[in-house]
């Protein structure tokens, strides 16, 4: 017995010793503490809001989630609007036609195949909007307890959060209509989240309320001298100018005919229309008055702040200088024309593998290679919106008859003057902004970054040309309009791209700008029947690029049908045209299309330009489908100066809506995007937009 006990206890001790040793350095725990999770670096809400530094970082995190309108990521992850597999709102307008066959423009929009089961361009639940709103409220609700922040800094941070929240609401409001209003954080455990969509008006008022609360606590501009207030460290943060401009933009949208009309845009039978989430139910002139007031408030405040925001003026009265002024107005990060910009980290070359610049243009040489996934070809319809350099409206048919396009005196984009020995002088013949919104045949590859002078080779966008090769038509003249190429419409994208010299620069997205403010002001004035006052602000925008006033210019025009500048509708349409020229690639053309229910912009057939280089053989001018750069240039042949232009209908791919009448409900449903069906099916009270 005793022996047994000894043996037994010996073995037991051995086992226990084994336990103690084999578990190495970890403590052995028994009972419930044994099954605790191993400690990890878990950050909680308290970690964040017990530190001023973390709280400031938290605010930075909100900025990261702002809308950025240049798709640059090879990713389908949220935010969906940043993926180049998606497309841009501009590609749905009459100004641009996307030629990248991998994009949704091809597979969902031009084919009219989008359903409520797909993510729209700005996705209701896949663009980080609700995430941003949640995080904004989280900051607002918790900032009181953060140690080490002054009251004024807290107020300022809350105000910034409110602006971000309002801007994200606007990003959805502008393409979906009324939205559920979130006025606090959700914990997720509420059980019933039955939040219905608010009316369009209530949604606008909610955004305006947030901005009104924010305005007093923000700086007008980051133009101070301290590290907290200077431009170098702070440009990009929300300011009261940004908040006031956004307020004006929201109220303008709210007053626009899409929502503010006596008739709904669809057939009036849908729940969304009955609930006033996509239509106010009536027209009220006061809505325009309110928008006008917001514009005036901005202008007055800017005046009171020494007119900090202003148009970037040209240093000389030359086409290049006007271009440079316009270009630097939107691209320069310190531009005083920009009221609010959004940025993304890594959006420059060499710092991330995918970005806007690399997908517009070639990556190594001027002609390639490149993935050309941003083949947003400007359309002929867009190019035609740009006036002649003096401001006279352009009119394809009239100007063709007048010999301004083809023939000896053809000067579609440049006037060529032959000097002695065949040397050719070129002078830009159109609105300088054209060359900054579309790459056209004959313009230089570069506008010098600092001097603003054209340099480098000329873009050769004729059939067989150095840059275009056979992207528009093959050698036999058959239109091929190749996709995933750079000049499929006969023009190329330049806005935000500029040229290869811009590779490596941070590309901001202009969210609100002073020129847009002027044109919004003009539109509100026109809507409130102050036509002459309205034209004053339009002309201010035109004057920056050296163009004469609208009324004067139209009077000079020889076109058969001319807009009447004493007619409200005509003035408004001219303002919209001016907006397209001034605010290319800014989503505004899309907003204008739906705001004014311009279904005809969707159903209008769009065109590209077919250009031939001509050479004289005997007495005849014949097509020459060879590039100039290379053998011809090296041999000292004179620069090509005579071209033949004709139009072709875009066909790769044509848009299904072109076959519809603008009044067809199939067209009109497109004024607002579909909400995701899965989200509606979750049953918390969302109603679908009409027609989807």
């Amino acid at each position, binding site marked *: 017995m005793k022996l047994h006990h000894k043996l037994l206890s010996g*073995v037991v001790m051995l086992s226990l010793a084994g*336990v103690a040793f084999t578990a190495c350095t970890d403590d052995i725990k028994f009972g419930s503490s044994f099954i605790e*999770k191993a400690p990890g670096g878990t950050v909680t809400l308290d970690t964040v809001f017990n530190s001023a530094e973390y709280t400031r970082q938290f605010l930075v*995190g909100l900025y990261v989630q702002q809308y950025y309108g240049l798709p640059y990521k090879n990713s389908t992850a949220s935010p969906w609007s940043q993926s180049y597999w998606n497309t841009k709102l501009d590609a749905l307008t009459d100004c641009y036609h996307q030629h990248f066959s991998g994009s949704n423009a091809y597979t969902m929009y031009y*084919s009219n195949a989008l359903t409520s089961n797909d993510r729209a361009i700005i996705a209701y639940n896949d663009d980080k909007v609700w995430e941003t709103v949640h995080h904004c409220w989280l900051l607002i609700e918790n900032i009181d307890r953060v140690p080490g922040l002054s009251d004024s800094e807290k107020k300022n941070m809350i105000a910034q959060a409110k602006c971000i929240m309002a801007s994200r609401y606007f990003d959805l409001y502008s393409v979906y209509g009324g939205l559920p209003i979130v006025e606090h954080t*959700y914990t*997720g455990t509420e059980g019933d989240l039955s939040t219905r969509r608010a009316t369009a008006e209530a949604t606008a008022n909610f955004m305006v309320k947030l901005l009104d609360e924010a305005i007093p606590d923000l700086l007008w501009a980051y133009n101070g001298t301290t590290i907290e207030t200077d431009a170098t460290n702070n440009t990009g943060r929300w300011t009261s100018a940004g908040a006031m401009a956004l307020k004006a933009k929201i109220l303008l949208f709210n007053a626009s005919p899409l929502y503010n009309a006596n008739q709904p845009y669809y057939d009036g039978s849908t729940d969304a229309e009955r609930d006033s989430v996509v239509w106010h139910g009536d027209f009220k002139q006061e809505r325009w008055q309110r928008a006008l007031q917001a514009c005036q408030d901005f202008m007055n405040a800017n005046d009171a702040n020494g007119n900090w925001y202003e148009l970037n003026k040209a240093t000389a009265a030359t086409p290049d200088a006007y271009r440079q002024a316009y270009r630097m107005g939107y691209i*320069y990060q310190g531009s005083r024309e920009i009221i609010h910009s959004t*940025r993304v980290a890594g959006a420059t070359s060499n710092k991330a593998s995918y970005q806007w610049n690399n997908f517009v243009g070639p990556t190594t040489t001027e002609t390639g290679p490149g993935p050309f996934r941003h083949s947003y070809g400007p359309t002929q319809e867009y190019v035609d919106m740009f006036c002649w350099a003096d401001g006279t409206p352009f009119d394809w048919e009239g100007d063709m008859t007048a010999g301004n396009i083809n023939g000896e005196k053809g000067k579609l984009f440049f006037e060529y003057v032959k000097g002695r020995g065949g040397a050719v002088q070129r002078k830009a013949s159109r609105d300088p902004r054209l060359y900054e919104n579309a790459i056209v045949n004959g313009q230089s590859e570069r506008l010098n970054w600092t001097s603003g002078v054209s340099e480098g080779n000329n873009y050769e966008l004729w059939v067989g040309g150095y840059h275009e090769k056979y992207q528009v038509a093959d050698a036999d003249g058959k239109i091929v309009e190749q996709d995933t190429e750079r000049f499929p419409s006969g023009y190329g994208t330049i806005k935000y791209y500029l040229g290869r010299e811009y590779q490596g620069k941070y590309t901001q997205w202009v969210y609100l700008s002073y020129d847009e403010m002027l044109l919004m002001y003009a539109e509100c004035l026109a809507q409130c029947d102050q036509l002459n006052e309205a034209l004053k602000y339009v002309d201010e925008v035109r004057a920056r690029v050296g163009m004469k006033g609208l009324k004067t210019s139209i009077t000079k025009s020889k076109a058969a049908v001319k807009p009447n500048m004493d007619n409200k509708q005509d003035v408004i349409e001219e303002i919209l045209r001016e907006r397209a020229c001034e605010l290319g690639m800014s989503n505004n053309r899309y907003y204008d299309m739906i705001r004014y229910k311009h279904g005809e912009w969707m159903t209008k057939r769009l065109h590209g330009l077919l250009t031939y280089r001509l050479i004289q053989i005997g007495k005849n001018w014949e097509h020459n489908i060879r590039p100039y750069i290379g053998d011809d240039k090296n041999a000292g042949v004179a620069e090509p100066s005579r071209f033949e232009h004709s139009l072709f209908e875009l066909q790769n791919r044509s848009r299904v809506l072109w076959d519809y009448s603008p009044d067809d409900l199939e067209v009109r449903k497109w004024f607002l995007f579909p909400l995701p069906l899965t989200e509606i099916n*979750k049953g918390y009270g969302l109603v679908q937009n009409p027609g989807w």
Partner: protein
Amino acid sequence: MKKKNILMLTLLASLSLPAAAQQDSTGISFADQVIEVGANKDFTRAQSTAAVSVITNRDVNKRSAKNIGNSILGQGNGLVSLQGTGTYFEQNPTFYVRGLQSLSTSTPLILVDGVERDLSFVSADEVDHVSILKDAAALALYGYKGANGAILIITKRGEYNSKNIRVTYDHLFNFQSNRPKFVDGATFASAMNEAMANEGAPARYSSEEIAAFQNGNYPYQYPNVNWVDETFRKSGATNKIGVEFSGGGERFRYYTTLNLLSDKGFIKNFSDNDGYSTQDKYVRGNLRTNLDIDLTPTTMLKVNMLGMLSEMSRPGSQADLWDMVYSVPSSAFPIRNENGEWGGTSTYSGELNPMAQSSGAAYYKIHERALYADMTLNQDLKYWIPGLSMTLRVGYDTYSTLYEDHSMTYVYGSYPVTGWQNGVPQLGEYWTSGTPGTMGKEAATDQWARRLIFAGGFNFERTFAEKHYIYGQLKYDYEYQNSTGATGYTIYRQNASFLAHYGYDNRYIGEVALMYSGSNRLAPGTKWNLGPTVSAAWVLSNESFLKGCSVVNFLKLRGSFGIINADYLPGDNVWDYYVQSYGANASYNYPFGSGYEANTGNAFGAQQRGRMAAVDPSNEKAYKYNIGIDATLFGGLNVEFDAYMQQRKDIWVSGAGAYSALIGFEAPYTNAGKVDSKGFEFSLDYTKTIGDLTFNLGGAFNYNKNEIKDQAEEPKAYDNLVETGNPLQSTYGLVAIGLFKDEADIANSPKQNFSTVRPGDIKYEDINNDGVIDANDKTKIGYSAYAPEIFYNFHVGAEYKGIGLNMMFQGVGNYTANLSAKGMYWPLLNSTSLSQQYYDGRWSPSNPDVNAEFPRLSTTSNANNYQTSTYWQRNRSFLKLRNVEVYYNLPDCLVQKTGFMKTAKVYLRGIDLFCLSHLDEADPECYGVSAPLNKSVVAGVQLSF
């Protein structure tokens, strides 16, 4: 008598058999089979209430396989075993007990001698038998780990007062079945031209070039290499040798085995280098010692130890040679070019050159080392309380791998053809790439795992009044598991369990198990869970009305119900699902500022709210119901029948479908998943001896069906997209309705949105009737491609005067294959090869058959055709001859003349020699881009002394 007659008629009326051979080869009858369920007491089948099938010693080692897992492939009743592919080193089957069961995981628990362990290096020689634990009564005592069933491997032990030495030697000749066949260079070139023409592009190869591929006049520029035959030899070889010492004395038993395994693979050119071979090789040594020591008349000590060392060597850079063979067409480049450097072009990189990779890239090694050790002490306390005993157990396992990377880079190149002049190709400047390398020397630990178990408890076993048998145990156990990839996330579990077993007169048996389990993987407040199980059995054959009946030798009815808890983590091993986390995202910089280049400004790492903490977290539970019969009839027919039902509840799934986007942060995981499964197993085994002839036949048939009842699925736009209500892991895809005939056919059909469609492309059905074919037209098109619903096997065997034959067949049904192997089924001629099968069966302008076996050729990935669809789906049912053996036991008189030998057996085996399936050119278990499966012929000898 009447009752017996009825029973007899109901079962197998026509047979009347003598009550003789109801024992397996080890001499244990079916009723006396040991059924281990994790208790400290092992019951016999007659006593047990659990649903357990046993792969007996007779069957565990008939495939001369690498490990016990491969050895029991196809065997058993209730076990689904699916062959693994890859090189010899990597071949391990996938197991399911009763098929797919849950949205989380269906992987069963694998135990070696009662401890959760990897079986991949346990040799079949050291295994006594394998049990398949199926119902709640069998799994109750495994706590959180038993929900998916268990496979229990029991190793051999010695016997008292005996001495036996056994030597086994197997030599395997291995062959690869269904090697892919690719087209020759000229055919590839013309196929490329055809593909270009299909896409409206000009031909890539001129007729001169195609002729050059054909006549081989310019073998360096226009090569025609059969990469499969050049890279791989026809056969490989494996040698296995095992020496076993077993026996014991009065108070001591031992079993020791030394087992050596060596495999050489299929690389053809392995000896091109001095000093090393680039063959695929695997060498392994196992040394096991199992001891049973009677320390005192009441103290028993049991020690099991397995030490293992292995070494694997393969060509350098861990090159996947089979992947290359599917990628590189015969026309891509020569093995070596004119100047002796490896072939490679700017289109097809020389890094894809299978010959260069298999002989010019040196080698890469993995070493595995493992120690499995456990010790059990049993102390009888009958002097204190009669019937009481105490059991203590401790075990420690360790496993690690090291790699040695001796890979080497190499130079490759080619002379490109710039054009043809006067019928002769003109060569351009030599193109070359790759860097000349020296052999690498890197070595490091790769993976490791360790485990500690400890258990202790009291047992009570007594029979009262001769009829009342009672067994009870109280036990506490814990385990600690730690492995690579989970640093900081060590798993701790512990259990307190109570088991009570009561038998009345060997007729009525009842059992209750209460399992109180804790795990550190579960959320606070949910870490501990109680899993109760009740089961009962009625041994009819011990009833007086069946006593002495010659037809029914043994008959037992069983039933069980139990709740088995599981501690599975949600998502991809997410541990902090119950914590509302906030995290810094370092990539979230924001470039404030007015300068262009500046990435400075106020760049911060921003703080973001993480996934929402799970609300009311719980844990997955399996409600298992089982009824069954165990019987031996007619003296030799063993029957098992089980019908089961299982409800899985509270399975972790993503809650995204239930949460509004408005909450503004990631939806939590939720315990909303529910899966029901049900099925049955049926097995028969009949042995009879007539004079000198003994024969055996039998089989098993299993049917496992499941249905997803709930998975918090996001609301779907169309009914066809809903997955709830379908079986787990069903195949979803498009329904193909032939190929497009011509452009008119395309114009008249609904638009297909995947890519530009051309004649010869696959035409799909508009399932949701919206006029467009897109991802919304996907629907359930087939069974699971992961596990079959039907699994069956049957065997026959006979022995006459020492000469014997046995065969085992195994098959599956309700099983789906989705073909997608590049080069084989999805050729995209710019980057892969082209199989002969595809070429012969393709649609082409000259053979515009809308029902062609394969669609038109395309140069690049064809998004329209290469969708999962019924077009690529095949019935994956198959029937295989898993193993066949012919053996001869040398007559005792002859063997014993040697004076030292006891028995001698020689045998020939065939492994996986024959397969019936619906796939023409591939094996139904291996139709992807991977090494083909092996067929083997084995010559073996077994001597005992």
